[in-house]
């Protein structure tokens, strides 16, 4: 184990991938590697080691997605980094109609092993165009795996799995997690998709949270524990595939569910998990399911406006109290 920041953990996963597979290329390398907490000499060593495989393309998200997908179909294993998640909207057609359809539409004859990475979330002053949490849209694509890492160790292991996966995989990193540090296993390792992590055990309520919201859920759990409420925090880690068993087993134990998601509540990850539990574990519920998510508004620039709509630990505590005090 060693202490690492989230970004350095992701870069290490990338470095292992580049070393182990000559078909891995990084498109959009600069905004993934530079000013991300690497020592300058380590960053330079990476650029020197892979001069032809770390690429800084034009501001052309559409064709970069086509290029990465086409190259993946022709035998490469590209990692495409868009920078801010909204920039990938420039490539929505390519992602949704081309990339996501490659395998199924060819009757299983073709595959597109590539990773699409983006920095997302309400980040402070991002206003309407730099604050998106688009996870539900990608979950809705049918044909894309979706990964939402919430800790440095998960970031490294899940990213390594994403690059090894033979399916197209979207990895969304919350900008507010970038500086987070944590223990990461040494060496090259993977974390399998579809395995939720119990981030905290508890008996009174299940909080299913993703990405940055895992941290907020854990803060909320600490606060609730002071009032004698023991919350179990479940982090699905991947949404496609989703570990329904772990989520339902937790709700069967606690009898209550709060879902926490930074995306817009409408047709969201939190909605999906709520529906899943309603379908499979309704009999175990002692109270209604509550969602803590962003309301359906474009994020405003002004700090108090942004704060008002950002899901956080306080809002999670309030939701849990509604259930436990009912």
């Amino acid at each position: 184990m060693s202490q690492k920041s989230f970004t350095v953990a992701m870069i290490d996963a990338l470095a292992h991938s580049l070393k182990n597979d000559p078909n891995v290329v990084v498109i959009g390398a600069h905004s993934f590697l530079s000013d991300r907490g690497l020592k300058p000499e380590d960053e330079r060593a990476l650029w020197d080691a892979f001069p032809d495989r770390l690429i800084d393309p034009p501001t052309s998200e559409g064709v970069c997605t086509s290029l990465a997908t086409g190259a993946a179909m022709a035998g490469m294993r590209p990692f495409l980094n868009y920078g801010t998640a909204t920039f990938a909207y420039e490539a929505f057609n390519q992602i949704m109609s081309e990339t996501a359809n490659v395998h199924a539409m060819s009757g299983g004859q073709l595959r597109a092993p590539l990773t699409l990475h983006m920095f997302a979330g309400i980040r402070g002053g991002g206003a309407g165009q730099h604050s998106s949490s688009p996870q539900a849209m990608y979950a809705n694509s049918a044909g894309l795996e979706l990964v939402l890492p919430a800790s440095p160790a998960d970031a490294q292991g899940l990213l390594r799995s994403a690059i090894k996966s033979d399916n197209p995989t979207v990895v969304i990193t919350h900008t507010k997690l970038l500086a987070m540090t944590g223990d990461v296993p040494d060496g090259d390792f993977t974390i399998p998709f579809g395995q939720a992590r119990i981030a905290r055990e508890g008996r009174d309520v299940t909080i299913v949270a993703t990405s940055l919201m895992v941290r907020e859920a854990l803060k909320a759990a600490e606060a609730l524990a002071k009032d004698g409420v023991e919350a179990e925090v479940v982090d699905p880690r991947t949404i496609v595939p989703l570990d329904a068993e772990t989520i339902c087993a937790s709700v069967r134990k606690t009898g209550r569910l709060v879902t926490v998601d930074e995306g817009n509540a409408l047709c969201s990850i939190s909605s999906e998990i709520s529906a899943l539990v309603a379908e499979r574990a309704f009999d175990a519920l002692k109270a209604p399911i509550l969602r803590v998510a962003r309301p359906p508004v474009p994020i405003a620039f002004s700090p108090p406006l942004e704060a008002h709509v950002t899901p956080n630990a306080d809002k999670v505590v309030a939701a849990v109290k509604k259930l436990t005090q009912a």
Partner: protein
Amino acid sequence: MALSPREVLARMLLMRRFEEMVITLARAHKLGRQHLAIGNEALGAAALMQLRAGDLIYTTHRNHGHMIARGVDPGKALAEILGRAGGLNGGKGGTWHMTDPSLGFQSTSAMVGGSIGLSVGGAFALKHKKTDNVAVALFGDGALDEGIAYEALNIASLYALPVLFLCENNSKEGEAQTSRLATKELTAVPKALKIACASVDGGDPEAAGKAVATALAHVRDGNGPYFLEAQLVRWPGSHQTVHAFTTGVTDVTAAWDSAKASNVHAEWQRTDPILRTARTLIARGTVTREDVVALDNAAAVTMAKARGFAEASPYPKPEAALAGVFV
């Protein structure tokens, strides 16, 4: 309608002092990131000061200069950058999305290529309504990297839309490269699509003013779109995430006083559009040194008032975050 060189210089000075105030306020209020228009003043003033009521303007992340050049209230603009209720957008837009429809601003998009796309829609409407107004798309060289640029240029040419594509090219090879095009000649792209085009020194307000006048006349007369590339100098501070006064607060007397010459930023002082324009106008006898100092002082007074307004403006009520999504 030729612009008065003195008025253009006055506007340029206001643009510069505005951006310097943004740096000051960004520090004082711990703001995030802004994209400043220092170095873009000559083209900005020369272009935006020639627009008429009813013309439609589409701009980018680097919009502050365009706002001030067009005559937007600097107090309301600063208040917007501070996220205050008295800001142009009531605090909802911030530095990247300031807008003022009363002066023709239709959109400020921080998505590279956003302005160029929407501008053809504005031009389409203007043509449909048979006005002699024009749409003006302001965008950086980076916008030409995006596929939307090709599509917008093509459809504007195909439908002979009344739109001026005004490209602010600040790319310098290497560190400061903001576009990656297979041609060094930006106008080659519109030219291939049969759009009239020209390139101009964007640091010279007179040359830029004339080039814009020619372009606007072409578009207003119903000849279809026009593409003007303005070659800009690049302010040494412009690639920094949090702007320092890299080159120092502008001292207009450096235009003539060799004691104010900087060793580190000699190239900037030579090419800075403010100092360059002051030198030219003084040499020609259009203004005196004293005039330049007086114009600069007036800009400083305007900005001090603007700051006062912005800082006194309250934050919006938190619940305002939920309002105004739909008409």
